[in-house]
């Protein structure tokens, strides 16, 4: 293992983070040197019994200087807040058509699912120069995905989605790790990320065992676990909503609130169907907790997304 797997700046964002880091470090070094110089000079010059003149402080040192350095520190810190804040706001939104990879963490491994349906454990292949969006969820405790070379990190929560995105601009093998303490083998939870050229990625994808893509897997599940019995059957006696174009829509609830049907909402609907009932429906859907695992839920949601043709679907964002 090589330190390059950690500290390479594998994206433009990583370069900018490092710039911020070094600017702050320079600033801190200046402050430390200034203070240490002052302290050492005072210690020597005003050691007990030294001949240096003492006496009352000049007036300017008594009050004005205090206000001066308070204000100066304040503006310096505010400047830095602004700098770092702008940095993070710029990095906030991935482009709309980023390649979406699902990450499911459990004690003590990461499972990755590519849009093509390819699955990997503790290893992730991604193409270079392509915006990638990772949508993360956990099956047990809180984990965290940390990719030092990209300077990104996010906690992975059970029953919730969090997101990371990046556009790598260097190929190579980089280190990934879990950074939130998650139990006995926490320190062994991690893996490697292979950033490869687009051609290699295409080759790698086609070399994977033949498998449908996520949406197709989801479609199969939609029929096999019985969703289609109510949601896709005009003759059904049960009054269930049609799920075409559901993803990204705003849904009116019985209590008057309006929520957006994003991944988290759809996931809740599958696992906690009686939370947030849409207006006009009875709370009669069964829960699929225990019936579906995280991977299957991911597939189902991918299928529901594929049913959405509206151009107004919001781009994926962290």
């Amino acid at each position: 293992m090589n330190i390059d797997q950690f500290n390479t700046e594998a994206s433009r964002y990583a370069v900018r983070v490092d710039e911020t880091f070094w600017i702050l470090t320079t600033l801190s070094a200046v402050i430390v040197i200034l203070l240490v110089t002052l302290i050492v000079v005072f210690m020597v010059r005003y050691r007990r019994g030294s001949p240096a003149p003492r006496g009352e402080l000049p007036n300017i040192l008594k009050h004005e200087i205090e206000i001066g350095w308070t204000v100066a520190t304040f503006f310096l810190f505010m400047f830095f807040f602004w700098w770092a804040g702008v940095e993070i706001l710029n990095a906030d939104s991935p482009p709309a058509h980023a390649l979406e990879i699902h990450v499911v963490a459990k004690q003590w491994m990461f499972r990755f699912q590519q849009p093509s349906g390819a699955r990997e454990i503790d290893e992730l292949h991604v193409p270079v120069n392509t915006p990638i969006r990772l949508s993360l969820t956990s099956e047990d405790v809180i984990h965290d995905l940390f990719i030092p070379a990209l300077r990104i990190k996010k906690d992975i929560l059970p029953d919730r989605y969090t997101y990371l995105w990046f556009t790598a601009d260097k190929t190579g093998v980089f280190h990934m790790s879990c950074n939130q303490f998650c139990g006995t083998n926490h320190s062994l939870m991690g893996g490697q990320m292979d950033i490869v050229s687009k051609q290699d990625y295409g080759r790698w994808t086609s070399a994977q065992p033949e498998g449908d893509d996520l949406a197709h897997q989801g479609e199969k599940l939609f029929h096999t676990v019985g969703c289609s019995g109510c949601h896709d059957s005009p003759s059904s006696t049960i009054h269930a909503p049609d799920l075409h174009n559901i993803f990204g829509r705003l849904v009116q609830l019985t209590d008057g609130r309006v929520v957006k049907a994003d991944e988290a909402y759809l996931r809740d609907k599958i696992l906690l169907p009686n939370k947030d009932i849409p207006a006009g429906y009875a709370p009669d859907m069964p829960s699929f907790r225990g019936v579906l695992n995280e991977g299957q839920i991911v597939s189902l949601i991918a299928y529901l997304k594929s049913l959405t043709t509206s151009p107004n679907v919001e781009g994926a964002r962290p």
Partner: protein
Amino acid sequence: MSDVSRALQEPWPDLAVQREGVHFGIWVFLASEILFFSGLFLTYAVYRSFNPQAFAEAGRHAEIFYGTLNTGLLLTSSMTMAVALRASGARSRRITLTALALTVLLGLGFLFCKGLEYHDDLSKHLFPGPHFAIASPPAQLFWSLYWIMTGIHAIHMSGGIAAVVTVWVLFWRRTIPVQNSTMEGVAAYWHFVDSVWLVLYPLLYLVGRS
């Protein structure tokens, strides 16, 4: 003077300062207690704001009769406690002892009703777990908070009752005179515990009634 010498404790210079100090100290402690309960209130507020329907459904299962009765009992006990404090300030030993005794009885009445209510709740399977009565999962959040909030409040009540009984015995045996700074502290604590209940009452018993 013997009264005074028995009431004055280290390190206070005189009784007036001691009384003020105890009053001040108990309020600082109450500020701390406010934050203690606010952790629970925050949890409740977050969960309710995200699961309004489930909370309304879950809230309907709470025993509003016991809740309201208990609120009445506590308000009455606060009244008797206020009477006791005023009586002690006026050095009326008999009224102080009577009012304190009434306060203790009302407090015990509260705990008794609470016990009956717990019994009903348990028989209706309202303790979160595998046999929980309400289908919607966030209802378990409401009932978890119900048990924790009322439980902690009941522990505070018991502490209050113990304190009042202790003071009562000290007064009864004339160990300390009825006009005493301890009385201030006990009274302020008792009122505080009642106040907490006044917040719990709408949060736990008046949800989803309309």
